[in-house]
């Protein structure tokens, strides 16, 4: 069906529907943070109400056109990318905070509310929404739920999933479901809310969410440590987590640090470079910090360290870690977002290091990650003189080795960025054939006509 025809039908159903077909808009709204696909969106629509979303989905079923739910488009898996003239459903105009209940410490938000907006709102209420990452100024709660976003404080607070107390979803067939209604306890069988979380827009469109807020933590200190080797990262972690109440333990290499410092015009935090660094955030406790530091110095794992003396300095330390993704974005990096159990991380890092230096000698590698929860981001930088298709093909051949290792170790090929289009071919490395069969079955039940995000995830 021609796009103009679809638009006419949409206009008939929703008189004042907001949409755009301008080339710039199609390219902007048809794309996330990945750059590996030829973007080809049909039209971008901006529903303003649950009813409008429902009407769009019903019409898609009736006329058989495809939909791509689109949030803040900060995704790293191509989940929100339109490549086959789909109708992109942007939640951008559904950005209201609808209700707050003090006794429940819960807030009901529309899906398009920006993650940072929820942070600020919680703070105004004297509460805290702990899920946070470098893209929280652009990503949306709906997108966070659709990808079960993690981020920098998973170590203490868990993933987005842990804060979704209720969901309102328009399913792929256009039904509105009200899931779990903010209940803490609800033992009434299959929890469809959790099925929706992390479903990457393939089962339904999240339109509203009831988010659980918590009490703010006590003041956090931030410490940056320079370490002598990759091996030291997890040794220092085991000392640190014993002595300190950690909220974050993040790791990055000197190459990553150089990119951030170059990109943001920052001075390097230490006079002398080290192979890698960790950033720890924890409840202020000077004595314990000194113990960790002294122990690490004795074993030679820790070379140097600085500790924040003000909140502003703490934020500056975070920039060294949080600025990494942005600082390498213009190199079109190929991102691996992988995880193993924490206990297996040292073994995994060694094997991975050996593997990539054998297979990627020609590429610059930028390592960093939420290593305290077993999650590593391995970024491969595209050489200037290589075209993007060759580069992608090259990376994909090495994937088989990396993912083979992950499979052996029972790990995940996508810890928090999702599967989308980019990791879809590799899902079998983390999910068994039987599981995949069931996943496809679930997709069929919710979306018999394959309307929502076709070609993604399953």
């Amino acid at each position, binding site marked *: 069906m021609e796009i103009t025809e679809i638009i006419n039908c949409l206009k008939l159903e929703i008189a004042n529907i907001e949409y755009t077909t301008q080339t710039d808009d199609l390219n902007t709204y048809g794309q996330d943070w990945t750059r590996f696909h030829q973007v080809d969106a049909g039209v971008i629509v901006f529903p303003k109400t649950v009813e409008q979303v429902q009407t769009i989905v019903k019409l898609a079923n009736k006329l058989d056109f495809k939909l791509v739910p689109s949030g803040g488009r900060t995704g790293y898996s191509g989940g929100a990318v339109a490549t086959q003239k789909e109708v992109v459903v942007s939640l951008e105009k559904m950005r209201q905070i609808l209700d707050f209940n003090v006794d429940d410490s819960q807030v009901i938000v529309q899906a398009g509310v920006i993650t940072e907006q929820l942070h600020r709102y919680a703070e105004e209420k004297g509460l805290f929404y702990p899920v946070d990452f470098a893209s929280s100024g652009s990503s949306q709660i709906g997108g966070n739920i659709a990808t079960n976003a993690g981020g920098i404080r998973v170590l203490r607070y868990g993933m987005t999933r842990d804060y979704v107390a209720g969901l309102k979803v328009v399913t792929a067939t256009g039904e509105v479901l009200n899931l779990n209604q903010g209940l803490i306890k609800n033992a009434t069988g299959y929890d469809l809310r959790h099925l929706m979380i992390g479903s990457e827009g393939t089962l339904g469109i999240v339109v509203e969410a009831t988010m659980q807020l918590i009490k703010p933590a006590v*003041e956090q200190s931030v410490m940056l440590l320079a370490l002598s080797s990759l091996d030291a990262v997890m040794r220092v972690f085991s000392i640190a987590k014993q002595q300190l109440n950690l909220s974050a333990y993040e790791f990055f290499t000197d190459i990553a640090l150089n990119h951030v410092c170059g990109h943001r015009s920052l001075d390097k935090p230490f006079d002398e470079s080290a192979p890698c660094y960790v950033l720890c955030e924890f409840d202020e406790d000077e004595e314990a910090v000194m113990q960790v530091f002294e122990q690490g110095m004795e074993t030679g794992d820790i070379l140097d360290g600085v500790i924040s003396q003000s909140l*502003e300095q703490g934020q500056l330390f975070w920039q060294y870690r949080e600025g990494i993704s942005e600082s390498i974005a213009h190199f079109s990096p190929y991102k691996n977002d992988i995880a193993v159990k924490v206990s297996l991380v040292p073994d995994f890092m060694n094997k991975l290091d050996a593997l990539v230096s054998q297979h990627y000698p020609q590429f610059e590698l930028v390592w960093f990650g939420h290593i305290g929860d077993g999650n590593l981001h391995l970024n491969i930088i595209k050489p200037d003189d290589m075209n993007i298709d060759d580069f992608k093909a090259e990376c994909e051949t090495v994937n088989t080795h990396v993912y083979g290792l992950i499979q052996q170790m029972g790990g995940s090929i996508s810890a928090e960025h999702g599967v989308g289009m980019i990791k879809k071919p590799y899902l079998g490395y983390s999910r068994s054939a039987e599981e995949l069969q069931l996943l496809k079955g679930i997709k069929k039940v919710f979306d018999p006509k394959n309307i929502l995000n076709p070609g993604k995830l399953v």
Partner: protein
Amino acid sequence: MKILVAIKRVVDFNVRVQVKPDGSGVATDGVKMSINPFDEIAVEEALRIKEAGKADEVIVVTIGNNSAQQQLRTALAMGADRAILIETESELQSLKAATSLLNVVEKEQPGMVIMGKQAIDGDNNQTPQMLATLWKRPQATFVSKLEINDDTLLATREVDEGLETIEVRLPAVISTDLRLNEPRFVKLPDIMKAKRKPLDIIAIDETLSGFEDKELTIQKYETPQARQKGIMVESVDELVALLKEKGLA
């Protein structure tokens, strides 16, 4: 030359301050406290002067309660040589603080006193000027660049019209502005070393002999009225209409 740096413990710049329900002050329980940002710049500047070989000792001094030792230790960890705590449980106003500092100045005879242009709690911007007056020495306030010569210094000041450079004779009082420098990070090994550096405690009364208490009494603290939330307009026309309605266009 000795440099004396005066610092103050304040509620961290990034904390959203809250007035106590009874209006008796600002809530500080469980709130992150830090060195006043301008004072941290003062410490940094003193250390740089010493590192450039133009001073041989940096002394930090603060007036405050026992917890203010923490901020002195931070300054020691940054590199100051020794610290003095003038201990008091009460909040001082500028004249009293300047008088108390003068006592230390007379004892230590520094070639320079560097302090922040104001503390971000009261934002008074008075103590450096008062200290210079009491000490009967020149002052260079709001300094964003400093050049030390033998017995004078060249100070670039941030003034309303732009920048102004003045030459003052040492000893003098300098108050720092934000652009003077970027304070260094505190290294963990230096925190350990700082524990062994001298920190003297003096009771405030010892520094105030003859001071006639003429302080203002504060009656009540109040939160400023909340500003109205902004609204989003959908179009330029709507914006123009609204501006007209409010008589602004």
